[in-house]
């Protein structure tokens, strides 16, 4: 069974919420991170995340939801995001964001592509494919950053594995849409 228009709107709005949240997370980290080169990559990717959120938000309107509609994920996942945003060590910010959060989000996008009707929902498919392409570029930029600042390479692997596990534990993250959806 494929996704209904309503299912698609809810999933796209949830993805939009996550992109806005991550954009704000990187923005919060910029002044709170000492390394200049890290501020630069975060600044670059704030704009990527904003553009991705914008494309998703335009798509929600085409799916009979408000323009730029965001849907907060289920509580446990939302709390996980909030906890991640509180990361303080620069190496954990970089490894956590580029090696856990983006790949995990890519897995969720691929699952969406598997579930949806690629013809009926082609506008969303195109947006998701572009986002996946962006993620590949963003991840390779983070590798270049680590080449430039090798002191950021070491990271607490236990922490990283824990983050990965927590993210993967939340298989279903889409909450039901409230009766009156607000953008």
């Amino acid at each position: 069974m494929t996704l209904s228009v309503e299912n698609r709107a809810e999933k796209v709005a949830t993805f939009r919420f996550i992109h806005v949240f991550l954009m704000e997370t990187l923005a919060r980290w910029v002044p709170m991170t000492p390394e200049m080169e890290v501020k630069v990559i975060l600044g670059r990717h704030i704009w990527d995340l904003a553009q991705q959120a914008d494309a998703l938000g335009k798509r929600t309107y085409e799916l009979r939801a408000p323009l730029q509609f965001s849907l907060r994920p289920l509580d446990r996942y939302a709390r996980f995001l909030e906890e991640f945003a509180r990361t303080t060590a620069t190496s954990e910010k970089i490894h956590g964001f580029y090696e856990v959060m983006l790949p995990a989000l890519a897995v969720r996008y691929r699952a969406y592509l598997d579930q949806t009707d690629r013809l009926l929902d082609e506008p969303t498919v195109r947006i998701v494919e572009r986002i996946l392409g962006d993620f590949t570029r963003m991840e390779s930029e983070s590798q270049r950053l680590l080449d430039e600042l090798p002191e950021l390479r070491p990271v607490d692997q236990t922490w990283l594995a824990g983050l990965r596990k927590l993210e993967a534990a939340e298989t279903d993250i889409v909450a039901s849409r409230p009766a009156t959806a607000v953008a």
Partner: protein
Amino acid sequence: MVALKPEETKQVKGMTLRRDPLREDCFSVVNSDAELKEWPDMSDISRRQRLHRHMNNETGAIEIAAQCLVDFPEAPWELRMHLARQCWDESRHVASLYRRLREIGGRKGEFPISNFEWTVTCALDSLAARLALQNRTFEAGELDLLGQLPPKWREVGDDATAEVLESILADEITHVRFANQWLRRMIQEDRRVLLKIAMAARFLSAVSAAVAPKEGEMSPSGLPFVKGEEKLAPVNIEDRKHAEFSDAEIDQFLRQSGFESIMTTGAEG
């Protein structure tokens, strides 16, 4: 936005400012531009210092735009998109200035830095006030400065830096323009925004006066300070027009800069 907590602020000469953003240990951070080492010529050390200072100012610009995204989540999405785009632009500016700094033999932390614009702008509690200060005042001032700097760098044979500055100028015009457009819109919707902007301007004047060097004081480079009015770059009329300042506003800048006599012809040109 919630009010700043005491630990997010610092006191400088009786003024409450936002505490500095984090910097690497290699940087020595001072409280005002008057404490920076500057050289009036275009010697090797002066060129490195100019690029180093500019690089930190652009770093501050990423931080200010990013902090606005954090502090004002309720701002209209289109405006947040402009701020996010500004983060990218300023990031590219930092990277290009750093690349150039290294090419001419400089390094991060070679000179003291000041985060003056951040400490003043991010002490303000409304987005309108921050746009008025950071984009419409500091960045608009940069339009004037960047309008005259590239020829100076070319005179000493540094075309590469001149090209970097010209590219930065083009981006800064868009940052000033979106601030002008949004401030107009905000004022139309709520006249009280004007009061916020006026208070921001007054705050900037008070802080600038508090940190200004005293009469007869020497700069950290051992040279006399250049007076504020002598330091002002000529008003970059063409780019201020691109940034959607009105003719009346440009006239006012010309008056403040002592260009009253050429005001009418210049503003029309």
